């Protein structure tokens, strides 16, 4: 009982132990902040990396694999499969307005099934936002126009409703739907003039078609170098041009079965939207186009088989009546809720193998196919971040050991100061164990208070880390998390309660460990010497 009584009094009347508490608090706060930011960063990287790749993917050779529709049918019969979608991936060149040319990763998709697998539609940048979504954007973002009475958006409102002439590009003619109506009938609104451009862009992006039904192209938001990234998941288009509704030319290189290059194929596409997954290597390089269009450009579409022995009167080969199946390079699959990707991968492997058995020789064997879960696909990508997180955490944990040394030295001093009290307690019958417990209890309470204060401090800082970061940037020019450099606009600001609790427990443990040696020393003090201690 005397331990609790004395501990509460020591706590209220001694300054030095409060320093031990402060050191535990600071170390706990430091580790929680670092862990939250780094782990949040890892989560963001993982989430961004996971976008647009489904749960499991079948990757074939660059020349594609045939009978993919049978594979899709087989997959869709599985109870573990929610959706599956064919894709073609190849490299290409994109010629944008004003002779801007970029090397791009061309991704041919079937928009509807691809959206079912990956949530593609939610990555479209130009779409009407809910009020809650719009409110999260910084003031001045064009996409707030529906909700934002801000006069600074007036010009953008005019663009979206098609009446602005950008002075810089005035000589090039009007831009936006109003101007485009004069030049590109593709964008005339079949549903009437009242439907906003954002609504039309959303539909066009989801279907990869203009309102008139022409195949469209959706580039990543950073494909055009003039889309300048600003904070708050926004891009500044002012003084530049508005990519959607513009026309671009895509050039791809069809390959022979032997891997040689045929004549390049070019095609003009209207840009029907842009997308952003907040992953730089995707947003700056990927362009989506309809899979059937890419198939044709690459010569991978289904064709009628021609006879090699029979010819018509003009000497041309006669069709055999059979079709050579089309090819794709990839199939992405989404698992039903509760199905582990690893389990799905096994079933996808079995499904592909069963189709292969029906078409031996006409498809790559399963051993040549790459069937991987999403985690396996991005393992290399997130591996570096994981290692970095582990390294930083290890370093900060080692630094936190300083708290143990600090607590040890503080408690060594406290025991020195309390030598006579120890003698008194021993004289009234306190045991050595009781004396040890007195100081350990003291350290335990200091540790608990320190860890709780540290956790509170960390939660406060982590939750306000972005305003703090903005303040440092504005006042002192210190910008650690530059949205132009990093993939993410904001510093992760969530504290994982489980890990925070673990770190707090470690803080308490460190405090008790630090006090252990002084506590044992206190217990071993000779009571007679202690009573004579001056």
């Amino acid at each position, binding site marked *: *009982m005397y331990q609790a009584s004395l501990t509460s009094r020591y706590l209220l009347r001694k300054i030095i132990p409060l320093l031990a508490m402060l050191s535990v608090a600071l170390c706990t706060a430091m580790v929680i902040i670092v862990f939250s930011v780094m782990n949040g960063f890892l989560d963001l990287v993982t989430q961004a990396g996971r976008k647009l790749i489904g749960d499991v993917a079948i990757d074939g050779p660059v020349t594609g694999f045939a009978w993919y529709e049978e594979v899709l049918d087989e997959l869709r019969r599985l109870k573990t499969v929610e959706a599956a979608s064919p894709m073609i991936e190849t490299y290409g060149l994109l010629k944008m307005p004003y002779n801007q040319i970029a090397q791009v990763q061309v991704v041919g998709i079937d928009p509807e099934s691809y959206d079912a697998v990956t949530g593609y539609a939610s990555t479209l940048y130009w779409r009407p936002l809910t009020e809650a979504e719009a409110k999260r954007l910084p003031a001045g973002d064009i996409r707030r126009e529906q909700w934002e009475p801000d006069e600074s958006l007036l010009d953008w409102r005019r663009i979206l409703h098609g009446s602005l002439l950008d002075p810089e590009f005035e000589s090039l003619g009007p831009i936006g739907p109003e101007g485009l109506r004069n030049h590109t009938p593709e964008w005339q609104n079949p549903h009437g003039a009242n439907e906003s451009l954002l609504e039309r862009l959303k539909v066009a992006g989801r279907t990869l078609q203009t309102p008139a039904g022409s195949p469209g192209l959706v580039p990543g938001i950073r494909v055009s170098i003039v889309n300048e990234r600003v904070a708050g998941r926004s891009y500044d288009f002012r003084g530049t041009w508005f990519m959607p509704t513009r026309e671009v030319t895509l050039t791809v290189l069809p390959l022979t079965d032997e891997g040689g290059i045929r004549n390049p194929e070019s095609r003009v596409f209207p840009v029907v939207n842009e997308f952003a997954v907040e992953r730089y290597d995707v947003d700056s390089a990927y362009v989506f186009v309809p899979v059937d269009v890419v198939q044709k450009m690459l010569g991978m579409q289904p064709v009628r088989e021609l006879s090699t022995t029979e010819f018509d009167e003009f000497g041309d080969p006669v069709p055999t009546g059979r079709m050579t199946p089309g090819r794709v390079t990839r199939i992405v699959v989404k698992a039903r809720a509760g199905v582990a990707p690893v389990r799905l991968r096994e079933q996808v492997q079995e499904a592909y193998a069963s189709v292969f058995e029906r078409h031996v020789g006409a498809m790559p064997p399963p051993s040549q196919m790459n069937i991987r879960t999403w985690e396996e696909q991005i393992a290399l990508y997130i591996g570096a971040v994981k290692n970095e997180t582990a390294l930083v955490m290890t370093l900060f944990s080692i630094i936190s050991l300083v708290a143990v040394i600090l607590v040890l030295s503080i408690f060594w001093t406290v025991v020195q100061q309390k030598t006579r009290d120890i003698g008194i307690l021993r004289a*009234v019958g306190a*045991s050595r164990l009781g004396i040890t417990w007195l100081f350990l209890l003291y350290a335990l309470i200091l540790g608990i208070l320190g860890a709780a204060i540290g956790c509170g401090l960390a939660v406060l800082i982590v939750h306000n880390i972005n305003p703090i970061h903005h303040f440092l940037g504005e006042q002192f020019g210190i910008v650690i998390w530059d949205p132009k450099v990093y993939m993410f606009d904001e510093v992760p600001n969530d504290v994982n309660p489980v890990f925070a609790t673990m770190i707090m427990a470690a803080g308490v443990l460190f405090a008790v460990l630090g006090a252990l040696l002084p506590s044992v020393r206190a217990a071993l003090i000779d009571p007679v010497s202690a009573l004579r201690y001056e």
Partner: protein
Amino acid sequence: MTHLLEVRSLRKTYRLGRVDVPVLKGLDFDVREGEWVAVLGASGSGKSTLLHLCGALDRPDRDGGTVLYREQNINKWSAKAKDRYRNTAVGFVFQFYHLLPEMNVLQNTALASMVRYGHLGYLSRRSQLMRRAAQLLDAFGLSNRARHKPAELSGGERQRVAIARALMNEPALLLADEPTGNLDAVTGGQILDVIAETHRQGQTIVMVTHDRAIASRADRIVELKGGRLATS
């Protein structure tokens, strides 16, 4: 009267640097139940050492004699038994009071009972123990000082608190080490009155002092000279 304490051939040697300094050189000494014994001796004669050995705060030399409490050799007891002995069988009063500065007078008085009963035992008896502590303070004229800190008390008041603390667990033996050594003559006299009063109520007391006049208040005086008892 039976012997409460029997000290036989007690020897204690301190080592100062490389030199062994024998303090007690084979001392024999008995204390009967209800007796007040004054141990008289000059500074450095080993009076306090004798008290510490009798209270199991210190150990005699190897084969350095025995201290028998109710015919049991306390030096053969376990550490736990010695702790219990110090807590319940003896009560110490020191020259420099040795009160815990963070606790108030009432809590200092109750300290030995806090040690004795542990958390749950103390809490379940809290009101009873606090009543006992308050009664002791009342008996020593300190009831108005119960909530004060030791630093707010005079020397005499502090020593009265120390005596109250020593008596809290109703020990069989009160060991007083120069209880008036830090007080003026008047205050010292008042403290001796308090000790005499507890003795009148049956308390066995061993008091060490260098002052013959103070020692004369006891039932019996034993004198320590050269590490042995000179007079009995």
